[in-house]
């Protein structure tokens, strides 16, 4: 039995011996692996950035949102979390702090904002002073919404940096008046910049006191608010969540066995739902691009079959000199696997360079992140392609009759 080192040496020599052909064959795999790696690196970079973005929410925060089943939505039904729910939680839920409601005053799509003849469209939320602690986001200039603002339903606004930029009002914005959805507000604060997430600015918003926001709602409209709060003891997160769920179910009069019409989510769950979305995207892309590796594999098989035919005499000589079936099988199989793993390794390098380069070239794109599992998977898959597509030609070579092979010209 030929030693592994010898088999490897002979395979390497054979690949070198047909440099151009081997290179072209491996190229198919290089392209396949490179595309997989580039796509995975870019998508994982995005996913990584989003997870970072949610990290600001803190591991101990819970968010209550209304939840309407899709079937119900089709029938025009819409579940809501209202101020009564907020009061219920504030009153009866123990072990929590920084309970802040978030009310999209002009609906989920925001409103027009005007300042000195400039117009911009932005999201408008009404919230309470504790919001800054819940979100761990504080004013960079001026002040945040105060209890006094709440009490007097003041028409004051705290704005994001991106909105100011859009309104050309970055110079001395405090004290200026801004028209939001037809109402006039005084800018009292500008929030710290949080940058972009997935190409969308997180600084494009305006906040107003919660009471002011409620007062602005049309008469018939029940508000649908989100409630975020921090749990004092992270250990008791699940306990608090269960308690909040129980309180709200009772408040909403949901019978046992019926589905909740709201959701209580941890920041982690929000992150996870995004992460799983990106993982799905990664997987789908990888699967699609994996097809190109299949094509690469067929190329390898084709080359190996040509190689076996071409080297029939060599096989005959080797067999005449004492090579066993498994020697010949190993020789050709290792040659195929060596070829595909070299292609895979080059592809990983090229793919990372591509992903990294693309992320760098596109402005505001997060840097590419290549997870270790993608590298391992790409490498393993390359070797797998070598085995899967190399086994048939190798078996063919191993089965050759020595004398028939020797006679072959």
């Amino acid at each position: 039995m030929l030693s592994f080192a010898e088999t490897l040496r002979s395979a390497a020599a054979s690949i070198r011996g047909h440099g151009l052909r081997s290179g072209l064959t491996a190229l198919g795999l290089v392209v396949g692996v490179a595309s997989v790696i580039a796509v995975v690196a870019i998508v994982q970079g995005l996913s990584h950035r989003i997870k970072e973005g949610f990290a600001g929410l803190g591991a101990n925060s819970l968010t209550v949102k209304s939840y309407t089943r899709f079937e119900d939505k089709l029938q025009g039904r819409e579940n809501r979390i209202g101020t009564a729910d907020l009061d219920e939680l504030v009153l009866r839920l123990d072990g929590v702090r920084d309970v802040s409601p978030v009310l999209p005053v002009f609906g989920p799509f925001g409103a027009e904002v005007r300042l000195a003849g400039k117009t911009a469209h932005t999201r408008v939320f009404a919230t309470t002073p504790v919001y800054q602690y819940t979100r761990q986001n504080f004013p960079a200039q001026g002040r945040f919404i105060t209890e006094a603002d709440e009490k007097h339903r003041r028409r004051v606004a705290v704005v994001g940096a991106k909105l100011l930029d859009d309104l050309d009002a970055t110079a001395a914005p405090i004290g200026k008046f801004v028209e939001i959805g037809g109402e006039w507000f005084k800018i009292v604060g500008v929030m710290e910049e949080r940058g972009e997430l997935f190409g969308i600015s997180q600084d494009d918003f305006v906040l107003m006191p919660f009471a002011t926001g409620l007062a602005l709602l049309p008469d018939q409209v029940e508000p649908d608010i989100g409630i975020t709060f921090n749990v004092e003891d992270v250990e008791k997160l699940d306990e608090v969540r269960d308690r909040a769920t129980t309180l709200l179910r009772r408040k909403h009069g949901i019978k046992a066995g019926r589905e909740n019409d709201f959701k209580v989510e941890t920041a982690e769950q929000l992150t996870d739902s995004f992460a799983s979305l990106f993982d799905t995207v990664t997987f789908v892309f990888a699967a699609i691009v994996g097809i190109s590796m299949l094509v690469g594999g067929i190329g390898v098989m084709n080359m190996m079959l040509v190689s076996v035919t071409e080297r029939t005499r060599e096989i005959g000589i080797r067999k005449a000199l004492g090579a066993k079936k498994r020697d010949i099988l190993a020789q050709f199989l290792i040659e195929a696997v060596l070829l595909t793993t070299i292609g895979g390794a080059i592809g990983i390098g090229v793919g990372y360079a591509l992903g990294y380069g693309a992320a760098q070239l596109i402005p505001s794109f997060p840097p590419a992140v290549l997870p270790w599992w993608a590298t391992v998977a790409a490498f393993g898959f390359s070797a797998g392609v070598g085995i899967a597509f190399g086994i048939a030609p190798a078996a063919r070579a191993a089965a050759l009759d020595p004398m028939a092979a020797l006679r072959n010209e």
Partner: protein
Amino acid sequence: MSAPAINAILTLEAVEKTFHVAGEPVHALRGVDLEVTRGEYAAIIGPSGSGKSTLMNVLGCLERPSAGRYAIDGVDAAALDDDALADLRNRRIGFVFQDFHLLPRASALDNVMLPLLYRGGSRRAHRESAQTALADVGLADRESHLPMQLSGGQRQRVAIARALVGNPAILLADEPTGNLDAATARDIMDLFDRLNVRGHTIVLVTHDASIARRCRRTIRLADGRVVDDAPSTEAALRDAGSLQIAGRAC
């Protein structure tokens, strides 16, 4: 046939080999009995189609006989599977082919080392044996040459070194001088002579009577059977006689 001699290396009993060409059976060997003992220097001769190459392939365990018994160095070859046969070829037989059959991309040394590598073990362990074998055939200074950089005679010497390197029980040569000019052929035959003097058992196939005369035994095949088996001088005399008869008849 009597019991094989104690020092018999090859023993054939009623060996037959039938090929099927386009559905038609072709009887290449029709019952060959043969015994070769240690230290012999035998030539198998015969006209084209007499079955001498087939016999050689059977002797070299490259082809299985269709019927009959074949033992090499005391091992019954018929009972062995493909891998065991490969091992037998590797350890007991040194093969020299008419067209050398060297690996074109491997150096002379690597070619010589090849049979040893199939026994396992590292390259380093076998390197010295291969160098010795190359020196034995007078090619110590051609180790790193590729076959295409060598002359025909040198290539055949490399092939002979490869056949000898594993210290086989028997050296089989199928028309070893068939692709060489007369002077080179003489050199190669001188080498075979020396090897035999040193104790190697050699069986070669040839259609060249002058080469057969250098061997000490001549086995003549015709139509798949051994028709004559005698010490070479007697065989040569008979040849001469038959030629004279043939000449007269013309």
